[in-house]
């Protein structure tokens, strides 16, 4: 037993060192944070800077005669810029103070707002031919000329209701390939113009109406035992997905390396040399443990980076440390299950190409939690979410999303998830070990699922 554990340890150590002392690993490890950092740093620059302002004409058919004027005002560059600024400020409302301060500096805001479009409003008569106006949208424009960007047709009862509280609206026609942002801005401007026209038509005081309608949204405060803290909506919303993502990422990185290395050992015929020194089960156990250490290292680095980020934004208090413990426990369970499958597939095939067909269902299972992530995140205690928490292999991922939510599940459900997950992992490992044992020395035709089942029976 002692010798056996020693051999498992030696195999695990070699697996770990072979993976970690590899340039590819270091590059892979740094790649994701580097990409995220790059996106954070570069995206605002490339998305806002030097974007040429949209220039063009917007035709308005206004039978009420009360909207077009307001629309002309609402679509001036100044009005659009003001709306963009308000929108950016609203989006930053729930971000940490450090981020908010940085993002609302005059330079940052100017970069976010960008260059406002220069729109020319063309008022058409109420009796204008709609078909002809639509054709105007598709007419070619001479080089340097103004593009025909939109046709707005205000309905006759859009300002004065035809029946009590039955207001009409408007129609918006646009050519192909119009920017989403411009379209949104047209909607906002039309809405603002219609509301303004209606207020005027009813002789209401706009300021009073707006004051009546305005309710400041308070930032909620999370009350915990012995402490209160500002609730961070964005943080709470993101947290479950970050944890589930780490779980999937950790399992995938370890499993994939395990698969690749086992296939490589088999194809370069080192397997039989190893089998003269260790049993197949010792070999499999060593490989799984070695790669588990690799995944744990990756997770530790990413969690560490996350904690440092939270600390630097003075948000560390928002994170429940127990979540990290749960992440590690669920990672171990999920990893054991998937790693056993990855190693069995690696032992069964002769080259990576052959592994693809066997890996497709495994990868689908691994990705399945993402399909349900939004549903679980929105209603973490619905019957569906609870049921998923008990069905392996997605149970650990589902539970991780639930645990990260604002309304975490009761502890008994967490324990059931652990027990069910562990039982499934043991069963899968038992099956995988049999396939691993037989598959290692099999060469030739790539096996299918039926072959793997037969091997498991024969082993």
């Amino acid at each position, binding site marked *: 037993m002692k010798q056996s554990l020693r*051999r498992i340890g030696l195999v695990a150590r070699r697996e770990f060192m072979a993976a970690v002392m590899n340039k590819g690993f270091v590059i892979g490890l740094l790649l994701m944070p580097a990409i995220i950092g790059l996106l954070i740093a570069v995206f605002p620059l490339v998305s806002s800077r030097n974007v040429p302002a949209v220039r063009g004409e917007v035709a308005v058919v206004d039978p009420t005669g009360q909207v077009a004027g307001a629309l002309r005002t609402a679509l001036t560059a100044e009005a659009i810029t003001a709306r963009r600024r308000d929108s950016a400020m609203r989006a930053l409302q729930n971000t940490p103070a450090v981020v908010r301060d940085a993002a609302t500096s005059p330079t940052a805001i100017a970069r976010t707002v960008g260059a406002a479009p220069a729109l020319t409003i063309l008022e058409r008569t109420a009796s204008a031919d709609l078909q002809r106006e639509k054709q105007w949208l598709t007419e070619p424009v001479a080089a340097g000329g103004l593009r025909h960007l939109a046709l707005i047709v205000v309905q006759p009862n859009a300002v004065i209701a035809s029946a009590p509280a039955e207001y009409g609206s408007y129609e918006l026609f646009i050519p192909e390939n119009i920017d989403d942002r411009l379209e949104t801005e047209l909607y906002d401007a039309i809405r603002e113009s219609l509301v303004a026209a209606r207020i005027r038509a009813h002789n209401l005081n706009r300021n009073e109406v707006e004051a009546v309608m305005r309710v400041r949204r308070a930032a909620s405060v999370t009350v915990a035992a012995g402490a209160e803290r500002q609730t961070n909506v964005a943080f709470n919303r993101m947290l479950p997905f970050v944890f589930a993502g780490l779980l999937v990422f950790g399992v995938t990185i370890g499993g994939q390396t395990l698969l690749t290395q086992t296939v490589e050992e088999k194809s370069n015929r080192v397997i039989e040399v190893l089998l003269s020194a260790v049993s197949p089960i010792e070999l499999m156990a060593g490989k799984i443990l070695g790669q588990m250490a690799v995944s744990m290292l990756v997770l530790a680095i990413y969690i560490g980076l996350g904690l440092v980020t939270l600390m630097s934004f003075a948000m560390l208090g928002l994170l429940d440390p127990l979540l990290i413990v749960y992440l590690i426990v669920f990672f171990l369970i999920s990893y054991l299950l998937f790693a056993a499958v990855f190693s069995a597939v690696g032992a069964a095939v002769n080259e990576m190409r052959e592994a693809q067909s066997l890996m497709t269902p495994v990868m689908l299972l691994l990705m399945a939690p993402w399909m349900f992530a939004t549903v679980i995140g929105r209603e973490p205690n619905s019957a569906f979410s609870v049921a998923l928490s008990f069905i392996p292999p997605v149970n650990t991922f589902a539970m991780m999303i639930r645990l990260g939510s604002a309304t975490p599940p009761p502890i008994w459900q967490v324990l059931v998830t652990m027990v069910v997950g562990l039982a499934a992992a043991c069963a899968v490992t038992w099956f995988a070990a049999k396939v691993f044992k037989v598959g290692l*020395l099999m060469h030739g035709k790539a096996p299918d699922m039926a072959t793997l089942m037969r091997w498991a029976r024969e082993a």
Partner: protein
Amino acid sequence: MQPALELRNLRKTFGATVAVEGMDLVVPRGALYGVIGPNGAGKTTCIRMIMSILFPDSGELSVLGRRSALEAKDRIGYLPEERGVYRKMKVGAFLIYMAELKGLAAEDAAARVPRLLQEIGLPGIEGKRCEDLSKGMLQRVQFLAAVIHQPDLLILDEPFSGQDPVSVRVLREHILGEHRRGATVLLSTHVMAHAEEMCQHVVMIHQGRKVLDEAMAGLRRQFDPRIIYFEPLDENATASSLDETATASSLDAHATASGLAANATASSLSAVIGVERVESLDGSYRITLIPGTDPAGMMPRLAAAVAPARIELARLRLEDVFVRIVTEGSRSQVASEALRASVTAGAEGVLA
């Protein structure tokens, strides 16, 4: 003392194919055994069962007194037929890793590696990656991985396959060195000449069954080839194939002065009592004796008949023994030649 290896009635099938059937074998401690047979005979399957890499369908085995090689892995050195290395690993690290898996402390292994590499003719390559070595060098490294922990039992499956003559010679010396150290050696090869040169005892396997289990000394007695190679002192003596019945026609066909001399030599040799047939072999003669004739007694008589430059009793060839055993009962020349071809296939070019 218990034998190093004992197999009792082992059987192994793969689907409908019977790979090994009724295999009994006892290898005493300290012996050097050769397991021979053509490709696909069942040698590797047998060895894999001994190593507990495969498990028999039925039968029993003991390895170094244990019921399974799994219980004695640290005392066994194994060089499989399908052998590889971690290509990116350095030679020293690979050897230390294998030694550690075999129970050696890392420090002891690290101390042994440079000495062993030196002894096998690869000094100073510890720091090289395995992928940077030539095939011959790599095979020597693989051999070291099998013996670095000084095993009690060394099992070598086709150790010379794909090796150049220099590597074969180096490896052969080291295998014999391991044997002299006291290790029991079980050597599998389809190149029977290797077994002839090295082994004390050979086991022949054909179609999954053992067809011979005999000491080389006994084999030499039992399968006496009755062939003597004779080179006359007179260099002009040459002749085509002759035998006692064909002598007259052959003499007519080669009526030259040297031909006459050669025929005279062949006739003289054929005339010696106990000679069954004389064949010419480009300047020398191959003399087949009548069954039951004592070759040692014949040699002075042949030398008396024709003055020899060289006279030599043919060595036993396992290939001949194998063919004779397997084709015994069926006198089909075609079957015999086909079998000989299968035995020698792949052997050419690897003989040192």
